[in-house]
């Protein structure tokens, strides 16, 4: 809940799923399950409404792609905990909803805003994400997309594996 291991400089994996615009992340595990943090419970409910085989097929380093305003709604934390448990290493989207962006940045999840991403990817395409530069390379499409790099502060948060870890390093007495 409080953070994750820092990501490698370049995240290499596949596009494990592509969501549409205004996507409410609570739907990843279903609104009935948004208070659960238990890993086994989460695994059992993750992406069931979209692809029951998702939890077996996703691999560490894979990323999720979203449309505009990804994370819209009233986002709870367990859905992204569930994806993290399965190895999802970043979210790349056309744009992020501010509340979701803030909450998951706190948790140390690399969130890359890459306009045009949904036009260039299909599921399971290989992808490389240089999160510091917000650079997304898509070998299948032969394209590289560049978003706005994270601020210095957000870079530090991701490097630390989340804001709590950074704050502890800075302010623990």
């Amino acid at each position, binding site marked *: 809940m409080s953070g994750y291991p820092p990501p490698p400089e370049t995240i290499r994996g596949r596009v494990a799923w592509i969501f549409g615009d*205004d996507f*409410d992340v*609570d739907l990843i595990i279903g*609104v*009935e399950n*948004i208070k659960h943090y238990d890993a086994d419970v989460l695994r059992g409910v993750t992406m069931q409404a979209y692809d029951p085989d998702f939890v077996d097929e996703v691999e560490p380093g894979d990323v999720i792609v979203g449309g*505009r*305003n990804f994370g*819209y*709604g*009233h986002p709870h934390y367990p859905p992204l905990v569930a994806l993290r448990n399965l190895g999802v290493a970043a979210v790349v989207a056309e*744009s992020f*909803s*501010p*509340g979701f*962006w*803030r*909450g998951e940045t*706190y*948790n140390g999840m690399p969130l890359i805003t890459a306009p045009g991403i949904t036009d260039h990817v299909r599921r399971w395409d290989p992808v490389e994400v240089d999160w510091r530069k917000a650079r997304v390379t898509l070998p299948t499409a032969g394209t590289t997309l560049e978003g706005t790099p994270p*601020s*210095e*502060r*957000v870079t530090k948060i991701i490097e630390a594996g989340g*804001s*709590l870890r950074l*704050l*502890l390093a*800075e*302010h*623990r*007495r």
Partner: protein
Amino acid sequence: MPQTITEKILARAGGVDSVRPGQNLPFRPDHMIAYDFPGYTDVMFRQMHEDFGITELAEPERYLVFIDHMLTKGDEKERDIHKVTRDWCDFYGVTLHEAEGIGHQVAAELGYAPPGRFLIHFDGHVSGLGAFGSLGWGVRRDLLEAWVSGQIYLDVPATVRFDLTGEFRPGVDNRDLIHAIIGRLGADGCAHQVMEFGGPGAEAMSIDRRQGLCGMAMFTGAVSAIFNPDRRALDYADAVARGPYEPVSSDPDAEYSSRHTFDLSTIEPQVVLPGSARSANTRGVSELDTTEVTKAFIGSCASGRIEDIRDAAALLEGRKVSAGVELNVVPTSAEIHRQAEREGLLDVLRAAGANIHTSSCDFCFGYQKPLQPGEKCISTGVLNISGRMGSTASEIYMGSASTVAASAITGTITDPREVMA
């Protein structure tokens, strides 16, 4: 360099002469606010004491805690949660306001948000304080950053300017406006920016309406919303402010990322379908006039103020809540409850068959009298995602206090202007 009100407030809070959108800087909020809620404040309390080793606060007066959730069961769990909060506030010398109403309203009444102030909260509805020309920003878990360091890094937001003309027609209010804005601009129309309201329509708008409007900013993607302080805001602030304050306003030539004009006299009553407040779910009330409801709710930080209660009472006076509907009314604060009682409004509502409840957040998040499977509620609450007010198999429609009152009378979603006619 010309600046918006938001940029001026942030420049002061950042200790710099000016800021520009896109800069990431540390800012010192005037107040760092939370309400107690399991999984949030209890965790933060423990983290500060045990993980950070903080045993004393340099400036406890900048911290502010409200108990406004989980006040209506009186069970052991509630008592335990609030005891942890009281003990923590006592230990650190932090001011606690308990059961005085919904914090986002009580903060205004108690003078924490006069023009020019910068306030953060983990809850985004703190943006309602923008009604007074103060900047309220919901930062989620980053509140911990401010609580342990006294400052918070934020991206300076650009500002979207809304030029309001005309005045609301009877039966139409701020609630209809925010959904009309979402309908036109989309759920990310103001993403990562601040909504600034101005123009003659803004000047003519009452404080209650401004609070309700600003408090819903997040559903446009905005990080906050604000009015430039005028005579109304200054009069309110002068009566309640705790200490001196410095009002600031946008320069006439301030830069905005975009400008939109809304003529308030053309706004129609809006209803939001169950799910979320995005534009695809936003409808004119007439499109839903065959939708039956079993519950009706007037309250939350986005409604339940004296003008909302007056509107509901005007519609319900001499009428009855439909036999198939339960209408629950929760004044936004204890002060508003007392005022509504003095004005005889609550007696009107009771005579019509409404239930009046003590002020808290408990209906809006499904804690008090949760919706049962199959129920349909018309609500002034802030959120209508599945399960928000109870069962995930219930449905929540959202509208203004007038629309909720009119719907409670007829038992189907109803245009308040039809009941007025």
